[in-house]
Each structure stands twice: as structure tokens, then as C-alpha cells.
């Protein structure tokens, strides 16, 4: 089989049994791979009402048809389950080389059910899978776990995806961490892994991915790489990495300072993106098969954190441990990031939870009596780092912070839910929704809860190639951040194309502009797999994935009223900066979005005609 490994492993931890099946032709044609396979399998296998932390939940890891090949950025992998944070479907996406290694080891996906009686790990090597005891790994952080497993199996190229203490303690704010620094983030997949007593999945493959048309793949890959290098975001990511993105949000007045009380952070200069490159960077790396080395490595050379090694901070890192919590110290941001990596915590949700607690403290909703004597003052670096550790260990006030802001607001009361920045129980990730209307809609309708990467409608920031606009039929108002017109259509289109990238398992940063156009994907897909998908069929696959996630969530009790935003975003105008006076005008965008999706505004259900059209 070209492209695909042709094997999905079903691992039953209750019985310790493993079976292998080939993905069916219908599955390949209609779901492509990656998040497509994952969503279909979760929909089919997770019983309605399943306890997310019970053995009946299903944990799936998947790669895509172009993983482990020359296709630019073909390294991503997906982990998903029913979320303990939201109660809905969730999946997180990570880079590195783990996903490609899984393909070289002979698997398109791992489907894990049940619960092991004792801590265990999976060793996936050259077509074989072993369930091995892991009592000595339990309690170790992600960096220690990877090193121990590489030592044990005598292989420095063993790729390890694992959980830290937070996942073991079933904290909903967890993720699965691949190769120390690549987070399959959001929604508590780490806690699901912990609930299964599964510490790690170590992968190594000496095999290869058979390619249908090698010379065409070579020429198409070169063409796409050249195209990527001509796009404006390439140089920014190449030189500074993702942290520079925060500068744009600051300039536009949407940086979510002090738990989203302000659009501009008054102490921004010291945490601006250039600082990390100029003061701490010791080089950059790329994920596997990726021509864009955006993953920078940092070393703090002096001061209280001297010797601290940190990798791959993101735009969201700078916000969550900088602007959000009122912290002007870039070194606290670097240390907080690595702490989250080692505990396999979702740093976005952790940062928002700490910021929310700080605003509650500011308002007197909680006091030092609730915090064990800690002063939750803005920008208090010691407190930020201590709280991260307490969240991972589920200790003291960390126990409630680890539940996320929705549950914190329920516990704290006193109208604190008005400024609890979450959607469906998942914390809002990047720019303040009041500064970008379409981005706000993306948060509101995302199946996994508030997150920017599901729609990733980056053309609202101005990077909208004319051909993208034409292909989607998006009006020019899409790039007007305060307009609501056309945002429903733009976000729906955007969700569909981002879903294709997640099915292929290509990076959504790399594919954010022209590489995300289906006309640039059909050629490489044909060259790798020898199969034909038309541009329209690819878009239909993306749309099918979005609708199937919807059906999963409706089955779990989702209502249209859940497609909303926090009270503050809808009712409290931003008090400062270039977005001053703005709130989100959600309803007209939702109306347009539901119309484009052909979903019933009252029930949230896709129409029978839409389901038939998508063969659902």
C-alpha cells in the first residue's frame, strides 16, 4: 500500500490483547487519515455518556497518509478521546518526529481501550507492539521518562510520547507530550492516558513509506517549499519563531492582559518576541520533514534561573505566562513553559486558570485563606511557578485550578463566571475575541471548546491570498477584523481546510496560506498514495470531519447555546488600545455560520440533506 502503513492497532488494556486491522477503502476515501480516522473511530467506539476517565473511553493516536515522507511538514500526529474537561470530543495535534516514526514502525493509528491493572507503557517497534510494566516510570516527568526508556532499550532514536505527574493525577488541564517538547495539547488527553494507567508510548521504526510516484513527489515538494519560502510568515517564523505573534495582538489591542481585563499589556516591552532570540536563543530546529525551522532553543545564562534550558515557546506561551498573568519577566515565561512540558500540562489552560485565580484574588472573591497563604498578585513569578507545580501534583489550591476556569467559577461563585474565559469548558487560547470578530466565532463554534487552531482563520490578520478568497468565495470583509459580514462563511471554510491539514497531518502553520489550498494538496497526495482525490472531495472530507464531531457532541448533550463566548467578551467593552470599546457581535455571525453549515439554529442538528450529502 502506498502512503499508508495499512495497519491500525487495537490495544485492549483490560485484557492485554492486541489486534491489527487494515483501514477499509471507505475509511480511506472518506476520512483520509489523521483526525479523520480518529474522529470516525471515536464516534463509533465511545459509548454515549461514557465517563471520560473510565475504561470505556477510547484514546486514539493517529498519523496521516503523507506522514514520514518528503511532503513539507509531514510530521504531525494527533491524539484524541472524549474530553474530561468538556465532556465532548477532543483531539490535540503535535509535531516532532513521533508521528512519522509511528508510520515507519508500521502503523497508521493506535486505538487504546480499557484500563491496565498496573502502570504500563507500550513499546511499538517495527510492526510489533508490547505492553510492558512501568512501575519505575510512574511519578517521573516527561523528560526523565524519555531518557529512561531510551536507556532501557538502548536506542537514542526511540521516540516517546508520555504523560507527567499531572496526567497520573487525572488533572483535566493535561496533554500528551511527545519527545519532551511537542505537546498534543488541549482538553485533558493526558488525564485519559493516566486513567488507563498508561505512562508512555515509545516508538521506533526502521521501515519506510512506499511512494507511488517518487519523481513527482520530489518535484512537487520542491515547488511547495519554494512557494512557502515566498510567503510573508516564513521569514518571521524562521527568524524568531511563534512568539512574535504576540506583538501583533498587542498592537491591535487584543493581548488579553490581566485575565482579559485589558487589550494592551502595559509592561510588554520586556516580553516582546525579539527578546527571546536576542537574549536567550542558542539556535533553531525543525520538526521532521519540515522546511520551516520555527522551533527555537533557549538558554538562560545568568541570574536565578541560570542554566535553564527551554525549547519551542509559542505565541500562546508569551500570553499565558506573560500578558495574561501580568508578568513582565521573560525568564519566568521560559521556566513556566518547561515546567508545563515536564508535567505534560496544557500551558494555555494553565495560564488562563492562574490568571482567573489572580483576578478573583484582586476582586476579593478568594483570599489568602483560600490559597494557603499565597499572595496571588499580578506578575508574581514565584507564585506562578509554584501554582504550576501544585496543579500538576493536585495539591492545595492547585487542585481546583487544575479543573479549569469553568469549574473554578462554579466553586468560587460571586459572578466570577462573567470573566471565566472558556468555551464549553476549555480555556480561550490566544487573542482576545473582542479584537477579532471572526477569530471570536472560531472560538465559539469549535467542537473541542475555545481554541484558535480548529478554524485558524489567519486571513483575518491580513494574510489572505486572493486565490484563497476566490476559492472559498469569502467576501473581502473577511480581513476586516471588526466586521461581522462574511465571517460565518469564512470560518466554516477555514475549519474545513484546517481539517484537511489535520487529516493529512501536515502543520497548520506551514499550510496557513497557499499550502493549505486543496489545489496544492491533490498533487502530493496522488504522488504519495497513487490515489485520486479531487479538490472538492478534499473539502468534503474536511466538512465531514466537522459534522461528525458535531454529531458526537450532540449525542453528548451539546446545545446551540453552548456555541457562545464568556460574558465579558459579549458585554464588557475593551477599555483601552486600538480595539477600545469593542465587544463581540456574535449572533449575526452564528446565524450565518449555521446557515452555511446547514445546521438547525434551534437544535444544532445538521439537516438530513447535509448528512446524506456527507454520507453520515
Amino acid at each position: 500500500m502506498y502512503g499508508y502503513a495499512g495497519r491500525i492497532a487495537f490495544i485492549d488494556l483490560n485484557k492485554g490483547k492486541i489486534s491489527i486491522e487494515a483501514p477499509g477503502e471507505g475509511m480511506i476515501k472518506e476520512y483520509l487519515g489523521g483526525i479523520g480516522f480518529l474522529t470516525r473511530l471515536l464516534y463509533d467506539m465511545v459509548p454515549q455518556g461514557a465517563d471520560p476517565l473510565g475504561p470505556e473511553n477510547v484514546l486514539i493516536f493517529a498519523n496521516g497518509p503523507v506522514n514520514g515522507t518528503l511532503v513539507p511538514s509531514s510530521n504531525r500526529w494527533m491524539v484524541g478521546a472524549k474530553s474530561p474537561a468538556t465532556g465532548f470530543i477532543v483531539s490535540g495535534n503535535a509535531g516532532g518526529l513521533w508521528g512519522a516514526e509511528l508510520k515507519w514502525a508500521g502503523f497508521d493509528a493506535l486505538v487504546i481501550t480499557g484500563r491496565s491493572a498496573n502502570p504500563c507503557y507500550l513499546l511499538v517497534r517495527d510492526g510489533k507492539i508490547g505492553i510492558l510494566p512501568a512501575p519505575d516510570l510512574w511519578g517521573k516527568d516527561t523528560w526523565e521518562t524519555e531518557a529512561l526508556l531510551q536507556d532501557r532499550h538502548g536506542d537514542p532514536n526511540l521516540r516517546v510520547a508520555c504523560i507527567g505527574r499531572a496526567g497520573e493525577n487525572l488533572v483535566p488541564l493535561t496533554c500528551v507530550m511527545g519527545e519532551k517538547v511537542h505537546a498534543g495539547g488541549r482538553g485533558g488527553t493526558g488525564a485519559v492516558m493516566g486513567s488507563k494507567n498508561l505512562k508512555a508510548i515509545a516508538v521506533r521504526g526502521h521501515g519506510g513509506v512506499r511512494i507511488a510516484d517518487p519523481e513527482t513527489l520530489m518535484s512537487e515538494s520542491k515547488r511547495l517549499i519554494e512557494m512557502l519560502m515566498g510567503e510573508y510568515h516564513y521569514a518571521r517564523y524562521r527568524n524568531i519563531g511563534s512568539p512574535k505573534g504576540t506583538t501583533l495582538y498587542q498592537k491591535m489591542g487584543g493581548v488579553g492582559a490581566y485575565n482579559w481585563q485589558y487589550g494592551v499589556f502595559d509592561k510588554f516591552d520586556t516580553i516582546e518576541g525579539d527578546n527571546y532570540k536576542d537574549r536567550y536563543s542558542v539556535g533553531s530546529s525543525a520538526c521532521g520533514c519540515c522546511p520551516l525551522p520555527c522551533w527555537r532553543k533557549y538558554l538562560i545564562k545568568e541570574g536565578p534561573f541560570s542554566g535553564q534550558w527551554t525549547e519551542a515557546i509559542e505565541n500562546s506561551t508569551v500570553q499565558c505566562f506573560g500578558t495574561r498573568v501580568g508578568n513582565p519577566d521573560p525568564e519566568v515565561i521560559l521556566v513556566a513553559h518547561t515546567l508545563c512540558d515536564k508535567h505534560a500540562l496544557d500551558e494555555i489552560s494553565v495560564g488562563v486558570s492562574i490568571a482567573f485565580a489572580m483576578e478573583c484574588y484582586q476582586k476579593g472573591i478568594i483570599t489568602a485563606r483560600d490559597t494557603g497563604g499565597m499572595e496571588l498578585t499580578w506578575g508574581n513569578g514565584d507564585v506562578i511557578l509554584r501554582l504550576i507545580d501544585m496543579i500538576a501534583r493536585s495539591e492545595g489550591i492547585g487542585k481546583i485550578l487544575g479543573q479549569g476556569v469553568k469549574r473554578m467559577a462554579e466553586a468560587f461563585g460571586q459572578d466570577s463566571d462573567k470573566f471565566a474565559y472558556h468555551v464549553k469548558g476549555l480555556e480561550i487560547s490566544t487573542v482576545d475575541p473582542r479584537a477579532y470578530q471572526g477569530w471570536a466565532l472560531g472560538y465559539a463554534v469549535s467542537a473541542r471548546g475555545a481554541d484558535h487552531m480548529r478554524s485558524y482563520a489567519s486571513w483575518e490578520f491580513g494574510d489572505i491570498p486572493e486565490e484563497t478568497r476566490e476559492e472559498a468565495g469569502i467576501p473581502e470583509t473577511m480581513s476586516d477584523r471588526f466586521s461581522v459580514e462574511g465571517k460565518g462563511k469564512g470560518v466554516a471554510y477555514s475549519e474545513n481546510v484546517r481539517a484537511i491539514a489535520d487529516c493529512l497531518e501536515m502543520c497548520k502553520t506551514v499550510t496557513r496560506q497557499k499550502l493549505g489550498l486543496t489545489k496544492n494538496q491533490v498533487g502530493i497526495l496522488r504522488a504519495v498514495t497513487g490515489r485520486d482525490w479531487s479538490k472538492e472531495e478534499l473539502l468534503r472530507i474536511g466538512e465531514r470531519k466537522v459534522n461528525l464531531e458535531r454529531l458526537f457532541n450532540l449525542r453528548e448533550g451539546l446545545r446551540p447555546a453552548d456555541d457562545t463566548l464568556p460574558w465579558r467578551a459579549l458585554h464588557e467593552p475593551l477599555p483601552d488600545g486600538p480595539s477600545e470599546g469593542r465587544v463581540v457581535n456574535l449572533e449575526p455571525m452564528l446565524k450565518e455560520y449555521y446557515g452555511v453549515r446547514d445546521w438547525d439554529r434551534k437544535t444544532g442538528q445538521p439537516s438530513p440533506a447535509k448528512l446524506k450529502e456527507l454520507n453520515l
Partner: protein
Amino acid sequence: MKANILFFDTEHCSGCLLCEMACSLIQKGECSRDGSFIKVAIHPYLSVPTVSLSMDCNCPDGQERCLEICNQQALKFVPRDEATRMLTEKKWYPSPVIEKTVERP
């Protein structure tokens, strides 16, 4: 063994493995690490790459597919009589040469 000597740029090689993928793709019709004649070893803790070349490499000089795909321009094949001069350039490092893996008489 190739007449020209492979140097890699320690500052710009990102460890992306596109060179390995291109080599194995053209040599074997599949993308794999084991099938490539150019080898990128990435340090498991520091994520720093080192590039080496197998004596199996049979690409004619000037037509190396690894070179063609490397968009960071981190690879350079240098004629032997110019190679010693390259040693004075700090960021360029000569790739170690690995013994042949194919069957020998």
C-alpha cells in the same frame, strides 16, 4: 566513495531530515531513514544534528538530490582540492563518512 566531500553548516542545518527523505525516495522508491545514504543523527537531549554520508552514495557530482531539497542551504559538496580551505570556515563541518552497507565483493 564520492570524489567531492560533503560539508554541513552547523548553524543552518535544522535536523529536518528532508535530505534523508529525498535520498531514500530516489534510491529506494520509499521514504525512510534506513534507506538513505545521507544520515542525520540528532542528539536526543540537545536536538542538535550531525550529518554524515555513506560510501554507498552514488549520485553523480552536482546532481545530489539531498542538496536539491535542502532549503536551508546547509549542505555543500566540495572538490577535494578545495576541501582543506573549507576547514578554516567555522560553521562548515566535514561530514563523517560511513562504510558501505551494500554487498561488497
